């Protein structure tokens, strides 16, 4: 499974658990429009850290938190293994 697929699967799983109705997950969708609150994002980042072994937002001190779904996915894709 690609990193992109793993990230979108995790988003969908958490949306189901948190009873959030997701719009279509396009790269241009702003994270705000996903309907996720900060707790849901915190859960997402923790789950992805367990699954992918990385937390791109803690590794780098100056990493800006992404603004869109595309930025979010790329943050995981661009982490050196």
């Amino acid at each position, binding site marked *: 499974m690609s990193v992109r697929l793993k990230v979108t699967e995790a988003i969908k799983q958490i949306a189901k658990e948190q009873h959030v109705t997701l719009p279509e997950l396009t790269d241009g969708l702003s994270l705000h429009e996903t309907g996720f609150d*900060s707790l849901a994002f915190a859960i997402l980042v923790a789950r992805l850290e367990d699954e992918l072994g990385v937390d791109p937002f*803690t590794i780098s001190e100056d990493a800006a938190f992404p603004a869109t779904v595309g930025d979010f996915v790329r943050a995981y894709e661009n982490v050196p293994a």
Partner: protein
Amino acid sequence: MSPREIFALRNYLGAELKGRTLSDAHHSVSLTDVLSQTVRGGRLGELSGRSVLLKLSDQLKSGLAMIELDGIARRMLLCPPDLNPAHLDALIADAEIDAVVTDEPEFWKDSAIPFVVIAQLPLTPAAPAETERATEWLMLTSGTSGVPKIAAHTLEALTGAIRAEAPARGPAPVWATFYDIRRYGGLQIFLRGVLSGGSMVLSDPHEVLADHIARLNARGVSHISGTPSHWRKLLMSGSAAQFAPRYVRLSGEIADQAVLDGLKAAFPDSSIGHAYASTEAGVGFAVNDGLEGFPADYIGVNASGVEMKIVDGSLRIRSERIAHAYIGRDVTKLADDDGFVDTGDMIELRGDRYHFVGRRGGIINIGGLKVHPEEIEAVINRHPDVRMSRAKSRKSPITGGIVVTDVILADGTDPARANEIREQILDQCRAQLASHKVPAVIRFVETLDVTPAGKLARTDA
């Protein structure tokens, strides 16, 4: 007060009660004629009036030394087995120790302590000693890093709850505990064993649970106590089926409904009770109705003179059973000006019962909100396939912290059902907890660490 009125352990041990024993995995010592024997080769007289460190490698010799020294020594300091040796010098200074009873004399040969008395088995004959004074019992508080505090008790305070109860009907009980008797919870059971006229079977840290249970059965144990973590371990082990005690007691941690129900199912013919006690506050109360928490009307003064109130959410206790002081140089006050001990245990009224929600010091921070891990664990433990769980916080770059949980599934749960169980646990948590308390991650694990004191290890709390 004349020496006759002083209350000492030897008053409960006489040759008229036959067949009493104190035993461990290796030895059994008769309590019937223990008063005419000694564990320390005839040197008891030299310990009269001294402040004695009991530093022994096992519980059996420790128990025998307590029986001999009570009423003779000025003080005795009990050392639990996991005491960090680096803290010994500070404790020796704080307790003004001037004698040590040990079975490891090599360790003490260069020490500055004037009297080193060697304790050994088998016991040797000795003239019965006379009680001279009320010995101060010094116990170490658990759960803190750094040098533990020393809480001072009298035997009268330590046994207040035991003497307040009606003696057990039927044959004298045979007591056992999963605790070590050099800690408050275990000492309570040792003292029950001595005061009840019965026997006591000690635990052994090197023994596997199945062998321990076999030994409890062989010795006819009827009354037994442990922490909820001890009991969950027994329920998980498959050894419970071979065991049928008359009385099962829980203390030392929050007894949630899941563990009470689990014990009721495993021991349908036993009475099951949970007790509240701490090294500082002494024994507060026991609850015997099979339900978690305690009835709201326990707050106030109860029939045995224990007074309880709630201030800032935590339980405060005043009674004749509390420790009378911390001993040492830089000590804080043990009780407030009115004599109440702040237990640090946070409680909450739900309906007509108070429930323990956790320790004040154990609060985890989730995105700026305070959460008791025990509250989350209690909800998770209600799932029928869960045996035990631990909640803790994990750093999050988004919210600062999130709740993560490790869960042990009950015996025989099909691992293929893990995802289904995870969903059910999450549903349960969402229905019963505020959203920030719902676990972000649920991990299934085989074991959870339990401290030497029998409590779930919370290293991050």
